């Protein structure tokens, strides 16, 4: 699938995500909008996956470590055929399997349960190490938030990935520059990320993480060391009034804002 087609799908996913947040009255819309282009590229081009066989041993692994944007993953999984598109309507409803953070035992396509930050990368290191030990050819991808990189467990995992020579592992940092309460730079500014990852023995690619023609080649890059993609993204990307506003970490649009957002995302669908 080519970047133009991926862009179209990403817009559809954004629109469905927005609708679900509006209907559920909750969600983490800012970080969902920043991550959706990368999720789209992964699920519609890069990952070797079989929606009818979600536990296929040869499947590529994707771990959404920033589990609070579960809705973006659910919508993507639905669009790709892992779950039904109608099921998105149950998001956050009583007894729905689609709660605020993904559950691998309930939702096909989810690899491990995330929610507390700093968990996905160590698990992804284990997945990549398992492939090395068993000779499996699958590749492991994991997405963290930039604020999430403040968790020390990530740096334990980064060091071990280099030590283990995990050239089959890709870390994507969704660098939208905002965490829950404030800008990254005003909280505990780990940016710039590249030199830090390189110092640990990783290859690093910096991209515009909302530009498909940069996302795809970065995800498809193969090297001899673990690979980190520092994806410069915009929180709330695609919806003008949300962009780069910390309030939209988990704010829910009112009816008027919703109409504006729908109109913006519906252009060029």
């Amino acid at each position, binding site marked *: 699938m080519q970047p133009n087609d991926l862009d179209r799908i990403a817009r559809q996913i954004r629109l469905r995500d927005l609708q679900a947040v509006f209907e559920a009255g909750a969600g983490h819309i800012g970080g969902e909008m920043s991550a959706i282009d990368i999720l789209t590229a992964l699920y519609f081009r890069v990952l070797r996956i079989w929606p009818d066989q979600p536990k296929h041993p040869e499947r590529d692994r994707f771990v959404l470590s920033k589990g609070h944007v579960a809705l973006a993953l659910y919508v993507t999984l639905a669009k790709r055929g892992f779950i039904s598109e109608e099921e998105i309507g149950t998001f956050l409803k009583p007894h729905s399997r689609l709660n605020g953070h993904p559950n691998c*035992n309930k939702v096909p396509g989810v*690899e*491990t349960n995330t929610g*507390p930050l700093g968990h996905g990368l160590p698990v992804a290191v*284990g997945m990549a*190490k*398992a492939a090395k030990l*068993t000779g499996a050819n699958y590749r492991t991808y994991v997405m963290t938030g930039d604020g999430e990189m403040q968790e020390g467990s990530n740096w*334990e995992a980064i060091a071990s990935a280099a*030590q283990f020579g995990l050239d089959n592992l890709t870390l994507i940092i969704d660098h939208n520059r905002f965490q829950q309460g404030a800008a990254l730079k005003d909280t505990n500014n780990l940016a710039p990320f590249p030199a830090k990852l390189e110092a640990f023995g990783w290859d690093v690619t910096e991209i515009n993480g909302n530009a498909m023609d940069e996302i795809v080649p970065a995800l498809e890059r193969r090297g001899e060391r673990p690979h980190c993609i520092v994806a410069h993204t915009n929180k709330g990307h695609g919806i003008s009034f949300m962009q780069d506003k910390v309030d939209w970490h988990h704010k829910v649009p009112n009816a008027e804002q919703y109409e504006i957002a729908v109109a913006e995302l519906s252009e060029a669908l």
Partner: protein
Amino acid sequence: MKDVITSPKLHDCRDAFVAVLERLGAANPKVVAVCNDSVGSSKLGGFKSKWPERLVNVGIAEQNMVGVGAGLANGGLLPFVCGAACFLTGRSLEQIKADIAYSNANVKLIGISSGMAYGELGPTHHSIEDFAWTRVLPNLPVIAPCDSIETAAAVEWAARYEGPVFLRLSRVGVPDLLPPDHKFELGKANLLRDGDDITLVANGTLTHRMLKAADILAEQGIGARVLNMATVRPIDVDAVVAAARETGAILTAEEHSTFGGLGSAIAEFVVAEAPVPMKILGVPGIFAPTGSAEFLLDEFGMSPAAIAEAAVALIARKSSRA
């Protein structure tokens, strides 16, 4: 079953663990060991020399160790994640909750040198909170074998069981108590000695002390039932309720805090199903002073003689109620 103590020789249960692990490793190439620089203290040297590539040493990084274990299981391997129980559980509790128990990862967590095995090293190295921390987590069997025979049987069982397990081992020598052909059953207590006056329940390093206490009580004409209850979760509710109904008093002892451990787990069911007088022996909610594990167990009233005294006092409470 008074002569249940078959050998006075003391065994380090870590040896039984690694003997089984290496047997499993030879039979199944999917068996891997994961550790936090604890090759020596987890006795993984033999495993490492046989299969160096299957020993995944993440260095001193317990959160990563547990997460990596979950990932290895996702990739189809059978990981035994080994580390000092204090660090494995305390440092990585959220990983155990989210990555292992909630994610239902087929990972075997092996807590080494649990309880006060590190004795003089002090409370930072004591693991007397781990029953409380782990047994509240759904989907995580919690097991503390009483001897090398039960350790070996529990490791064999854990390898066959599909799902997370926390196995709590000591390094303090204990005599063999169970028959050599013992088969481990999850959530099933072992009746080591029968009696009608009181039930003594223990696991891990306390079971053999309970048997000695029962000997002392027998000399006083008191019949004590002794249950070895390795499984802290799920509790053997039938054995607990039968003990309450048939003996009318339950005394527990454990190398753990008196808050939240085996005794607490039993009390939760005694209160609900068959209220009788109970006494919970353990570390009484303090950071322990300097001393070896054996010294501290005695210090906290868990010498066989002190256990017997506590039993007599508990039985008195039972008759004063009648």
